[in-house]
């Protein structure tokens, strides 16, 4: 064991990390939670749009259309929200991440092409369903299967990273060698299902929010919205129960000596999940009213679960005396401040844009939002950012 610890240590980047590892770890957990929520929305959204398309009758067709459109946007967000954990992961868990990626390199590069195909199919499906074209189910089904394939790969690579004692064997297998990276080496079904089953719970809650958001639009069909809310709430509650069952299964398949059921982070996440389930049961009678609190609680529960997942990784890594907190430090205050400033600016601008969408979506007629104060501020802030960089550049050059 000790020499695996030494291997991991020696694989760490010799330059160290530019700020306290805890900060990267927290950012990793938060951004991964956002990533996985959008993964859930895309998996569930593609499924619902295809399901609704084949169901035809009742309210299913308009629902399928709405989901087809929403999924194009959610897919973009899924990608961009995947970039952040990808970045932070490589800062503190580089030995695990890089090795695991190289071991399945062909898959990881293949994933990119699968994603391009899947995203294009989602677009084709959306453009065709809006135009009421026939025989388009194949696009949706293909997209769905590709997305699952991407999920399988993502899971395998995240999971095989946790077993450094196997790496050399996987790579060179004794005296022969496979350098092509065409094999996925590890898979844990309950863990994978934990991400997939959740998709339908999260998508159900999304439907509740949808139903609430459009309820004041005079050009929307009331009975349709009520139906969407009810269907969503029902879906959410059923799949949350299933999700808990899968969670217990996962818990039973982690190494027993971790005693993970005693882990405070895990217990907290479990309590949050139970509370979410209770609220969902309560919400069945009036999904629209409960939509926002439920969504908020779901977000917090997902954060809890992703924190528990990180706590689990800390335990796995700890088996080889690897701790992110002892990563060599090479503090870079300047660049840390750059990010902090940029991030704050981003919040303001994103806030402005979300206000615009929110108000626009709620109104059935064109509206005038030019008096929003944040409008000019958003532009000024970006100009100020550029000026700041010019200032730093001049200072460095002189």
């Amino acid at each position, binding site marked *: 064991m000790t020499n695996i610890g030494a291997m991991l240590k020696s694989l760490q980047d010799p330059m160290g990390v530019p700020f306290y590892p805890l900060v990267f770890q927290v950012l990793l957990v938060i951004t991964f939670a956002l990533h996985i929520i959008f993964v859930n929305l895309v998996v569930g959204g593609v499924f619902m749009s295809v399901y609704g398309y084949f169901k035809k009758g009742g309210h299913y067709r308009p629902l399928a259309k709405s989901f087809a459109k929403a999924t194009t946007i959610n897919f973009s967000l899924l990608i961009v929200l995947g970039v952040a954990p990808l970045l932070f992961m490589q800062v503190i868990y580089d030995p695990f991440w890089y090795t695991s990626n190289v071991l399945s390199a062909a898959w990881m590069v293949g994933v990119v092409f699968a994603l391009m195909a899947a995203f294009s199919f989602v677009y084709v499906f959306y453009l065709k369903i809006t135009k009421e074209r026939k025989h388009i189910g194949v696009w949706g089904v293909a997209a769905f299967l590709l997305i699952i394939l991407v999920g399988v790969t993502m899971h395998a690579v995240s999971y095989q990273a946790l077993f450094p004692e196997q790496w050399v064997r996987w790579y060179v297998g004794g005296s022969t060698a496979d350098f092509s990276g065409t094999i996925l080496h590890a898979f844990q079904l309950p863990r994978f299902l934990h991400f997939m089953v959740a998709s339908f719970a999260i998508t159900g809650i999304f439907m509740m929010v949808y139903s609430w958001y459009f309820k004041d639009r005079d050009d929307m069909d009331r009975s349709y919205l009520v139906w969407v809310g009810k269907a969503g709430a029902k879906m959410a509650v059923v799949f949350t129960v299933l999700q808990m069952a899968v969670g217990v299964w996962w818990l039973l398949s982690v190494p027993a000596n971790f005693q993970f059921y005693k882990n405070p982070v895990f217990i907290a996440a479990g309590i949050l999940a139970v509370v979410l389930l209770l609220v969902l049961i309560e919400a069945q009678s009036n999904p629209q009213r409960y939509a926002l609190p439920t969504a908020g609680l779901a977000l917090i529960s997902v954060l809890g679960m992703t924190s528990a997942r990180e706590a689990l990784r800390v335990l796995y890594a700890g088996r080889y005396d690897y701790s992110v907190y002892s990563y060599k430090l*090479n503090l870079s205050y300047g660049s840390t401040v750059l990010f902090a400033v940029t991030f704050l600016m981003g919040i303001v601008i994103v806030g402005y844009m979300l206000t615009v969408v929110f108000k626009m979506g709620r109104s059935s007629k064109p509206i005038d939002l030019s008096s929003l104060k944040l409008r000019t501020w958003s532009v000024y802030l970006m100009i100020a950012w550029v000026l700041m960089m010019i200032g730093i550049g001049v200072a460095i050059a002189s």
Partner: protein
Amino acid sequence: MYPVWQVPVMGSALVIAFIASFHILPSHLATSAFWFNVYVEDKAYKEDRPELLEFIKKYVLVILIFSFIFGSLSGVGIWYAVTVSNPKGISALIHNYVWGWASEWVFFIIEILAIYIYYYTLGRVDDRTHLTIGLIYAIGSWISMVIITGIISFMLSPGKWLRTGGFFDGFFNPTYLPQLLMRTSFMFAIAGLYAIVVAGTLKNREVASFIVRRASVWGMAGAVLAALFFKLYLWSLPDTAKELYGMSVLVGTVPDIAVAAFIALFVWFIVVWIRPQLARLVPGVLAILILLAGIFSAESVRERIRKPYVIDHYMYSNQIIPNDMVAKGVQGEMGTIDREGILHYSYFVPEGLRTIDDADLLRSGRIIAQIECSACHTLESNGWLRPLPAMMEKAGLVTVDDTQAFIGFLDSFPFMPQFAGTAAEKRALAAYLVSIRPHPAGAPAGRATIGKIHR
């Protein structure tokens, strides 16, 4: 050392090159297009010409699909391809520039929200709000270029960073400003090029020729400025890179392709300026393909003149760090590897091959070639990237002794790294190289030569 990903025949470097060159078109479109868009939209409102909005709608849909499916995913693709081909290289970049990338990520979020909102709110919010969203996108995507250029140019010319290790010392490096100015100017030319294609598909021909003429002026202005800044860029290159730029084995005719593409595009702008009706879909798309060839050549020159380093004077392309980097407390690896041997230094080597013995000489040699040479050479004779068998022939190396001596002086070529490893490893590599080299007529295959060293 991390394990090495071996792509048969093609070589992992070409996997990166293909994905990266594909990424060029959608990403440049994403950063450039909105400046032209906002300009036209502003005109539409100010001069009360709502028919111009037809163009806007089409143009944005092209950007949305092309840049936000293929552009953003090929961007992720470059990252993955680099991760699996050169993990230690990307690790070095990330451990320096994580906050730079994280800041860029903030702008990615802004861009994505802005473009979707822009597309879906056209005609549903007031003009000023809509223009502001467009402007937010335009500035935001340009800023993402401001950031990524800092990191890309850092790899070529880290400048003061090598001494100080400072984030901004590396970011604002000697080639940063010329590159940023060049890319920014060229961005307008690219926006013009795309706009001409989209205009070619418009039904209202009057609007089309209006757009085409404006776009070609943007194109010409951007191109002229970019050419000027290119001169500045060449002048700012570090001396070693300048030397490599002059070496024809390394860069060959690649810069000429870039120049030819540039001239062709300039002519195209002039032609459509004089006769906007010629701006139809097919010639427009052709012009874009020429653009691709041009940018690809220019970027590949930048990659080539960085050799033998992935980060200039810090890390070799084969992920070995030759020298100490005092400011960050990094120890050079050369001494240790020469002492212990590369096969001991790397974890991912089959147990039996770590210690060189005659029986496994060629297999050990192959692993060494994989670790130290495959970043720039494929091992198969039908490989696409400077295949080693052909290189052996080119260097006129026939015997193991000569080859071993050659390996000892590898770094006398300005574009190759110094060999790292023990004398026995040098010999194993030499034996392997001789065994894969095409055999001179008459000689009965490599066995004879290998037989010699078994004695």
